[in-house]
């Protein structure tokens, strides 16, 4: 593999793709911020700040949602999948920009954390195909997003474990493609989360709905 091309894939291309992602996210946030919003202005019953904090941390409290309480496996799956995604994203920065940090041990730890997410992607895909409820709501974007994340995980694992210029190049080309696609896909759901959780959390907080201090939910 030509070293100039490897360097381009690792650095210049990543910066272009990241800049693209950031610019599009900024446009999305700008568009959302321009929309009208009516917030509760009645005298409060609870704390809006506590409500927002509770909303942001809700997913870490499995007993707070019946969906997580009844299906602990799915909650664990959700956690493992997103840990894998976070590590994969981190890896796209550490490998090119902090190579000193990427010792053999760190590479193994990263790969071990991404591997379950990669395997769980197949479980997600199987569920989406096999359950009529999931098939009904699934669009080509759902399947493509899942497949592209799988590819991203797989290439990440290979680049971590088989540290050759070929795998690194493949990995960073896939990463760049992934970054170009994300703003158009449901993979961008996390950006909206910070918006929606703040709005909903504030409302629940103001109304004294959530958190219910010391009470079972």
């Amino acid at each position, binding site marked *: 593999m030509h070293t100039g091309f490897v360097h381009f894939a690792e650095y210049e291309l990543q910066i272009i793709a990241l800049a693209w992602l950031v610019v599009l996210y900024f446009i999305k946030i700008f568009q959302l911020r321009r929309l009208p919003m009516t917030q509760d202005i009645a005298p409060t019953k609870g704390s809006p700040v506590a409500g927002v904090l509770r909303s942001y941390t809700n997913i870490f409290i499995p007993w707070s949602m019946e969906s997580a309480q009844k299906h602990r496996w799915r909650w664990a799956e*959700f956690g493992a999948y997103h840990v894998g995604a976070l590590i994969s994203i981190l890896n796209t920065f550490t490998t090119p920009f902090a190579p000193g940090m990427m010792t053999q041990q760190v590479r193994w730890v990263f790969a071990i954390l991404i591997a379950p997410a990669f395997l769980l992607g197949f479980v997600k895909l199987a569920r989406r195909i096999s359950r009529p409820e999931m098939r009904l*709501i699934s669009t080509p974007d759902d399947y493509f997003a899942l497949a592209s994340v799988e590819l991203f995980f797989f290439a990440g694992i290979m680049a971590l474990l088989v540290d050759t210029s070929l795998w690194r190049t493949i990995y960073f080309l896939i990463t760049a493609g992934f970054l170009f696609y994300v703003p158009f896909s449901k993979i961008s759901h996390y950006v909206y989360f910070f918006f929606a959780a703040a*709005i909903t959390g504030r409302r629940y907080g103001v109304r004294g709905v959530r958190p219910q201090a010391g009470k079972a939910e």
Partner: protein
Amino acid sequence: MTLEAANKELEKKYTKLVGTAASNMCAHCGWCMEACHVYLASHDPAMTPVAKAERIRRVYKKNHDWMSQLFPAWTGAKKLTEEELDKWVTLAYRDCTLCERCVVNCPMGVETPQLIAAARAALVAAGKAPEILTQLADMAISREENAELYKDFFLEQVKEIEKQLQEKLRDPEATIPIDKEGADILYVPLSGLHTILPEAILFNAAHESWTMSMFEASNYGVFLSDSAKSKRIAERIINEAKRLKVKEVVLTECGHAYTTLRWEAPKLFGEPLPFQVRSILEVLDEYVREKRINLDPSKNSEPVTYHDSCNLGRKGGLLEEPRRVINAVAQDFREMIPNRLQSFCCGGGGGLVAVAEWSDARILAGKPKADQIRKTGAKIVVTSCDNCRHQINELNEHYNLGITVTSLSELNVQALVIP
């Protein structure tokens, strides 16, 4: 023409909240599925919250999402058609009761009911909303416009109820004041004795400074998602409270009436109301805590359970108040599982209870609630919402639950020690 009006209204409803719910925020993970009582009762894949939301989201995406504008087939986006709009009538008014149980069980907090409410507003604009809901909203407005016509008849009825009140309290001085300027409380009932007499007994027993509204608390404009009508209906009570210079408005046991006046009305009018708004539940809770009424729980010895109205609990924040009161007035209080924030809708919410032609779907959707009630072994079901009460009474009949459905005020009256 109707399609144009519907599309225009959808755009009017495109706020930050609806904009996020209509975006790629929903990852189609399916966590919300089992949160919906309609899906649990029907097992129909089209009845999951995400499937219902998706039908509206895809229309919004066609207008606002980049990918959907370029390649609609890729995201399932589509333009709203007359045919789809017709299908939205059952989707928005029958298949979703706006209970918000899906919201608290979604890891992202997607506000599916906001999308459904936007669809309801579009249907109103297109003239396709259920006629009965429109009629009920219009009747409430007409009652204010013709208040003088109703007044004499209303006062006559109140006099009759007052006689029963005096008899019950063995007190010829007990009254139901109307139009009493400077009273602390303006109590707003529903139409019907069951939301007037028990509260009148309790207010008199507590020596409360109160007066009763000429209007009923319910606001069908809210169920329609018709902001103009909601505002107009709420305005009747606000004007009356201002005219009588009361310190607070106390709403009867009605879920949507409480949420509307307590939380939504200030937003509709763009400013906080010049008086406090409370539910009768909060007043009773205060009476119990301050021992303003003498209660004997042994008078309610049969097992009692409480149904959380979605509007009062999940949307209104009144989760502990009714429980404190029941524990003070009944000997054997049993919780339904799940309860509070995770309580199931009775199946009749969102105005559905008023639409007679959908009663089969409503009774089916109430199955999870009926099962919950049966499991408690309770003989008395207390609920603080008249629509829930109506629905649970029908569930009782259909599923042979062998229960009596009552309100918190009635349960209090039952336990009241009259000297």
